[in-house]
């Protein structure tokens, strides 16, 4: 009956203690800020709404659909919660979901709960909020923009959480960064598509059934600048740190030296996913980062072009 859709809940014993305690502190700080904001800004109606919605998101993680072979797409819910409630209440809702998964279902450890909260409740929500707001800034409040923004927010938050999880495992000395980060990122780039599709379809359903929920949602009213900047910083930090860490794994060099295949081998056996490199740039990390940035710019450009085309089509033909 209960299914863990996301191989992302770190159990106890995997992270080094200082890292686990540090992430506990960071998450506690964010959750305390969220509690203060929610107590200040929202009325007493918010408590039952957040509580029941958290239960629904927990249950919603059971909903799946088959993709190919035995794999399936799942809902994780951070982006949906963010779009429906706004960033701070969403942090609290996802905190409840992750905490109950750890406390009641032992999905993720208790000492590692700080890290899991950081990845899924703090990072996931902040990044989802930033992406969603950027989409709205780009294309305005159209229905399809809301849905496409939901897809992008869901995908990015899933991948961001996975990359952070991979980095934490690498920092703890478990897997070399050039294995853990691309593996987590790669798997969740696919899982994120499933999550994004479900989120987009759920938003389409909600906008057809109860448009008022989406237009009146506090997250849609005014941009929360600190959250926006925080989400942006996290996203950029991850985009820079992941390829850097992958390019300089310490463990790998040792294996290569011991095996003495440092000159013999073209690609070391840990290299499961080939690098995306740009020709002409010597530094591997720099090249990977640049490739990522160029990809981002391309996506943004395509988005703007599509928006333009849509707007023009809306003027001439039936919308």
């Amino acid at each position, binding site marked *: 009956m209960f299914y863990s859709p996301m191989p992302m809940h770190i159990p106890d*014993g*995997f992270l080094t203690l200082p890292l686990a305690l540090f992430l506990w502190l960071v998450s506690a700080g964010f959750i305390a800020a969220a509690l203060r904001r929610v107590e200040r800004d929202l009325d007493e109606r918010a408590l039952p709404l957040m*509580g029941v919605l958290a*239960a629904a998101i927990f249950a919603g993680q*059971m909903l799946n*659909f088959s993709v190919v072979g035995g794999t399936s797409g799942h809902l994780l819910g951070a982006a*949906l919660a963010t779009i429906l409630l706004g960033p701070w209440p969403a942090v*609290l809702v996802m905190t*409840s979901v992750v905490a109950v998964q750890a406390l009641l279902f032992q999905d993720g450890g208790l000492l590692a709960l700080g890290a899991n909260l950081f990845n899924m409740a703090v990072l996931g929500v902040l990044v989802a909020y930033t992406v969603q707001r950027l989409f709205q800034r780009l294309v305005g409040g159209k229905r399809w923009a809301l849905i496409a923004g939901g897809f992008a927010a869901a995908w990015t938050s899933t991948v961001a959480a996975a990359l952070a999880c991979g980095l934490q495992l690498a920092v703890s000395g478990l897997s070399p960064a050039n294995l853990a980060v691309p593996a987590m990122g790669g798997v969740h780039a696919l899982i994120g598509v499933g999550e994004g599709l479900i989120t987009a*379809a759920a938003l389409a359903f909600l906008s057809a059934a109860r448009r008022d929920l989406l237009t009146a949602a506090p997250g849609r009213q005014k941009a929360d600048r600190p959250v926006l900047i925080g989400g942006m910083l996290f996203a950029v930090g991850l985009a820079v740190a992941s390829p850097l860490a992958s390019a300089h794994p310490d463990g790998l060099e040792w294996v290569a030296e011991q095996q003495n295949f440092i000159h013999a081998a073209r690609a070391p056996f840990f290299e499961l996913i080939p690098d995306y490199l740009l020709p002409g740039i010597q530094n591997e990390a720099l090249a990977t980062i640049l490739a990522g940035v160029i990809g981002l710019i391309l996506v943004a450009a395509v988005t703007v072009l599509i928006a333009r085309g849509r707007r023009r089509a809306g003027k001439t033909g039936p919308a």
Partner: protein
Amino acid sequence: MSVPAPDPYPQGGSRLHRADARLKLLLTLGFILTAGLLPDGAWSALILLLSLALSAALLSRAGLARLLRRSLLALPFLLAALPVLFTLPGEPLAQIPLFGRQAVISQAGLERFLTIALKSWLSLLAALIFSAVTPFPQTLAAMRSLRAPRLLVALIGLMWRYLFVMVDSAERLLRARESRSAASPRPGLRSGGRLTWRARVTGGMAGSLLLRSIERSERVYAAMLARGYDGEVRSLTAAPFQPVVWGALIAGLAFYAGLVLLAWLLAG
């Protein structure tokens, strides 16, 4: 990985069930922290912790087999720790072919891997035993009296109260989809149209689940108002620690501290 559902209302008359929930929570957290603090290859300390966990499991009368089965939940995650076998410098133990090359397993790597596996298994076992002998409302009360933020505890409590309602609701949605789209009993034969169509159906289910939860929360709010809710969540103040509980807590924590100290001294 699908796991058997935990009992939402653990009942039982064992000594562990009756013990103070705060004591159980603190000792469980202490147990996990202790496991985390042990050095690599501290086998005797780890085995001591294992015997502690197994005696608690037996004492709880929660069914050792069931606990052990559920404790395998974190097993897939061990994949993430597998590379330490090869990356840690040390005396080479064995060579295995991997992706067409020879990979060397070092002694230190093997020790680290086994330690991580044992630590995570022990921590999971402790958390399992804790939740098997502590009803969730008591866990929440313990968190509240240990100064967890009141609003957060109230939120988690409310979520827990509607958790099984919403899970049932999600299961009904899944069953309805299966009957609509004629799921075949033959494995591998998938039902439904294209990928985007399947995703849209699932998204619609998620949307209607959220909609139902939002509408339910409005009814819940009305019911809370009718019972005098004014924005403040009130709860009974917890009884102060009894001397026996203090004694047990101090003895337990001292035992953990001694164990960690000894393990590090022995490890040199």
